[in-house]
């Protein structure tokens, strides 16, 4: 009876503690978003999207940074998606289990946790200097590809692993070869999971400033990139730029930029969640 009472008390305590912790997170996030909205929302209009950066806070816009972000997003996905998915297929379906596979698995998971600025330094040396790309879009998107490759590989492996063995068995028993089984069964069945991981990785890339600054994207850019060899800026760097300005007017411009960046990442996360919900429980 006594221990029963005690258990109930502990139960109540843990419920309260969990609720309180969740609330702290929500309140802080709410305050932050509310604060940013209150400062920057009034600054957002059509001109904000179509204006070039300017010395005058009320004239400055995100046009070049937004285009730079879209370019970076496109190129990074172009490089990282096929590489990441192919590597995951190899690791999951072809590589024999053993010490080598274990070492690879541990290291890929570790790579996903390496601070992004380290990738920036790597990109600076290899892509900007050795390959001579400087601070152009190609160097930036190569660097971000390295950054999100481990994330794509890990999430794609999880998605592939979730395809039941019984479906692969059925395919093999029908006379399908290994690549046919992967192409016609494993990939379509894990499509939702793969896309979810890829989009989350992309939204990570969109928010990164540090590695791109290291590669050299901090330069003042007054034009929109027209080819992968052009220099560029992206939204997080543009925001960083504005915040470092002494004029108080740029705080408002920066807040408006943050709102747009938040909208983009929210939208991508929303798509990822939608895909996950749509494709989950497929085998039940």
């Amino acid at each position, binding site marked *: 009876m006594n221990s029963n009472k005690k258990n109930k008390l502990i139960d109540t305590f843990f419920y309260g503690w969990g609720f309180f912790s969740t609330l702290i997170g929500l309140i802080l996030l709410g305050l932050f978003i509310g604060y940013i909205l209150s400062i920057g929302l009034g600054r957002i209009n059509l001109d904000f999207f179509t204006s070039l950066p300017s010395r005058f806070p009320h004239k400055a816009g995100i046009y070049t940074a937004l285009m730079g972000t879209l370019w970076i997003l496109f190129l990074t996905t172009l490089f990282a998606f096929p590489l990441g998915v192919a590597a995951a297929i190899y690791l999951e379906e072809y590589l024999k289990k053993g010490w080598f596979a274990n070492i690879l698995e541990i290291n890929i998971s570790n790579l996903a946790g390496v601070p992004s600025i380290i990738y920036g330094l790597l990109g600076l040396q290899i892509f900007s200097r050795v390959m001579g790309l400087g601070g152009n879009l190609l160097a930036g998107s190569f660097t971000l590809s390295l950054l999100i490759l481990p994330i794509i590989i890990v999430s794609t492996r999880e998605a592939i692993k979730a395809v039941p063995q019984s479906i692969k*068995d059925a*395919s093999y*028993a029908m*006379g*399908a*070869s290994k690549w046919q089984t992967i192409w*016609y*069964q494993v990939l*379509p*069945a894990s499509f939702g999971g793969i896309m979810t991981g890829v989009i989350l990785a992309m939204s990570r890339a969109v928010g990164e400033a540090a590695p791109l600054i290291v590669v050299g994207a901090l330069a003042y850019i007054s034009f929109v990139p027209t080819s992968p060899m052009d220099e560029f800026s992206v939204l997080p760097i543009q925001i960083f730029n504005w915040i470092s300005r002494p004029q108080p007017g740029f705080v408002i411009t920066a807040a408006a930029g943050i709102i747009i960046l938040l909208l983009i990442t929210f939208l991508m996360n929303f798509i990822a969640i939608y895909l996950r919900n749509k494709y989950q429980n497929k085998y039940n």
Partner: protein
Amino acid sequence: MDNQIETDLLTDSEERIKNKIKTDDLNVFYGNFQALKNINLKIKPNTVMAFIGPSGCGKSTLLRTFNRMNDYIEDFRIEGKILIDNKDIYDKSTNIELLRKQVGMVFQKPNPFPKSIYENVVYGLKIQGINDKHFLEERAVKSLQQVVLWDEVKDSLKKNAYALSGGQQQRLCIARTLAVEPSVILMDEPTSALDPISTSKIEDLIFELKEKYTIVIVTHNMQQAARISDHTAFFYLGEVIESGKTEQIFTSPKNMRTENYISGHFG
């Protein structure tokens, strides 16, 4: 010379008529564990062979050697021979994909692909590179009719196969196997996950199918083995203890262990 070839052909075809599947001193190992010991079995064409025995006795292992599904298991090793149509299927020259088109398999749990009913049935043909829509549809209809599923699904061929009931799914899996026109069908406890009505439908089906195909079925259900099979092999600890005509095995088993097993004393 010509004569020699002729007699070779003759003995070859005679052998085919006698035995669809034949194992010669077959031993199977998983690492150090010997799963099958000295198996010498003959399965005649257009008959139903039932493998019975307690769990872990090797009957599924043997079934899965007939279409080389064990190849994916690490440490799997085989000694002796398995002849299907008088050809050694573990010979280096064997094309495994081709073998599996010849030897179809139905699994314990219905495992349709997460695709439409139609796509399920034509999958085996499509991976062979057949794209003729007319041909595919014809084969799909024929296969679904063979498993008596056509009337139930003819208006919903585009629906996902997961929307079907368990029994319908299993019949779909059989139709999928039939569509590539194999000559042998392996069934690994095909009704163990199904209700009695679905089970009896599948049993009726097996009875029909043996006119065209050779069927090997693993079952834990003694009545099922007695009802549908022509021959029965009783497995125990990796050995075939007794095999013969089903009637004889069930009415006058020669071995004590067989008798104990089929009368429900163990297993």
